[in-house]
């Protein structure tokens, strides 16, 4: 039954990993602006659609 120690350790490690990920996300400013990314997400399609149609575009992203 001592397998519970292993299970507990794993579950806590996983939890802590997610917690650290959260801290990093906040630190990088992800939570500072909660509106713009929701709009930006919708534009990525527009850009890809434009590219093959017109050849004038330079090849840098």
């Amino acid at each position: 039954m001592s397998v519970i120690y292993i299970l507990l350790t794993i579950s806590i490690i996983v939890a802590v990993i997610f917690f650290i990920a959260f801290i990093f996300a906040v630190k990088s400013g992800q939570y500072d602006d909660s509106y713009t990314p929701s709009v930006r997400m919708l534009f990525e399609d527009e850009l890809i659609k434009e590219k093959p149609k017109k050849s004038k575009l330079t090849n840098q992203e």
Partner: protein
Amino acid sequence: MEQSGCFHCGDPCDASTIIFDEKSFCCQGCKTVYEIFSENDLTCYYDLQSNPGTTPKDIQGKYDFLSQQNIIDKLVEFDDGKSQIVTLYIPQIHCSSCIWILENLNKLNTNISSPQVDFGKKTVRLQFNSETYSLKEVVILLSSIGYEPYISLADFSTGKNHVNRSLIYKLGIAGFAFGNVMFLSFPEYFEVNEFWLEQYKPLFRWLMFAFSLPVVFYAASDYFISAYKGLRAKILNIDVPIALGIVVLFLRSTVDIMFDLGSGFFDSLTGLLFFLLLGKFFQQKTYSFLSFERDYKSYFPIAITKILKNGTEQPVQVYDIEKGDRLLIRNEELIPVDGVLIKGKAKIDYSFVSGESEAVRKESGDKLFAGGKQTSGSIEMEALKSVEQSYLTQLWGNDVFNKTKEDDFTTLTNVISKRFTIVVLSIAFVSTTFWLFADSSKALNVFTSVLIIACPCAIALAAPFTLGNMLRIFGKHKFYLKNATVIEQMAAIDTIIFDKTGTITSNKQSTATYEGLSLSPSEEILLKNTLRGSNHPLSRTLYSLLNQNDIITLDQFEEHLGQGIEGVHQQDSIKIGSANFVGKTNEMALLNTSVHISSNNDYKGKYTFYNSYRKGLSQLFNKLKKHYDLAILSGDNEGELENLKKLLPVKTKMLFNQKPEDKLHYIKYHQSEGAKVMMIGDGLNDAGALAQSNVGIALSENVNVFSPACDAILDADKFNNLGNFIKLSKSAIKIVKWSFVLSFMYNVVGVYFAVTGQLAPVIAAILMPLSSISVVVFTTLATNWTSRRLR
């Protein structure tokens, strides 16, 4: 898109429409922007939104100061010699197209990389190659596509702004610990005497202890600090019982698990803090695109052109201007210091300062005050004072700007918490004394249980959730509050003071009445067509007020600067302008602005202009007069007195010719007599009054442009809703009181368990979240229900 509107900006196109690429444009600027976009395959911009653009302004030499190294250093965030990162504030950002085009700036110019828009703050952050490109060029590029960055003196002093994210961290930690502790304590809720469960109990309990450590020592730190501050100031604020509850919860739980007395209250402890912080987070709604802390620095430019002794022009920082310096003020530039006009025709728009929209003419030798905006051509002036000493900026030296209003205000929650804490402590002591005699082994258990269960979580949540939700509802109706405390202060006011110009009058439109001999149809046609040729603001206003007439071509048209205009068609001639100009000499000096007309040298009559009052003004005043003292403070002369008397209830006080300081002192005087004053103003001249008042509301025709420091910003279109907003803030206070009652009921149940010594951890773990959640649900439903009448 539509035929009549400009394809780029949507403004109506008149005679000067430019047709390009089968699309119509209102001006050359809009066409150029379209060309830039289509050359770079960015026309997708127009698919996202119809008419997304704004008309680009003419800029020349305006950004010369951006080539000064010391100014660049202040503005850029990062500079490694090869590339620079800068964040620019662009007030024009208004739709999703704007985000798209600004984030594709790197397509317009390859020197720019990774532009990123923050829509809420209306800023764009971008990196550019500083070896081949300069900040000045970035700004000019942005301006040329209609997104002119706004660089003000405020950017100069702030430097790198620090974002405080500690609340999110704390909330994250509390939530993380709460979830884990809940899982670990779940088996014990059922109290099954299972062999393996008994075996691992200590391990589970110590794990819970470990999870609660960061919650108590980091996430709860604000409550301890605030409670300590409160006690030192001899105030029993709401954080005192909360901090007490947290400490007792933690110590009791630790002792419990140490001596194997029980499983402890770690679940309640972490849950409590999670809910409390959630409430704090909810209340902290900020409108990042608005600023409530503005002073003159946000209006003033960062640099201005100085003319050196040898005649060369040089950009100079505004703070470095000294007495006697010669300054060049270009069209549309702001005068940064008091001075004397030396050269050029000045037409100063003081609307920033006074809210008065009509520009004032100045001749050389006249005094110019800081804060005015030059509106016709360039002028040269000599500085008489430095920035801080100028007439307008001196106002900010007043003490009112240095204190925060929240300090003087006791919130409803704190009023309740004082009595609450005393009651809870007495219950705890009385019941402990009782148990000391009845069964002394239970005494300590009862004492701690009372403090734990009485921890006023639900009370502390009532106000944040009610007021926070109200804040959001107000925001949806274009009434933006600085913070939730403003609602409580608004509910307490008894006096409302209005500024006149720009507040109860509309800047956009005015009305005119005609007095004199009636004009014949042919004279009317001539009048309208003569006005058509003039660019004077009064001519434009009158032109738009007159009925539509046939367009005729004038044989002769002449504009006499500062006097009037003259038009001739066939045998008829017409003169429009000042009394002297049309040949009427015995005109009494009047306070109102009027335009006189003579036809074929016979005096006909005059148009007198009146301010146009906002819609629903009379109704609003009549509604408010029942419960509030009303007053109007105007910086203008008494010209509108009669008009106002007709419109407003009889007992409305009206004071004219009030200087900024007079307004401030007027409010101070009333406050000293016990009045709670709400001030509604718009211009910088109201800044002192807004700061002095209990609730200062800035009215704004466009919330994106600047308004002075205040507690709330109200969109001018919603002016007639003001009465409803005040009423709603009163209902919000009622809701808070009712949720206090609700949470007291939970407390009574909890205290019953505690006093009788039967408080098991599972009961605390059920009662605490239940009371918090029901208070949150009640306040949210109640606020939404009461605000349904707001339309």
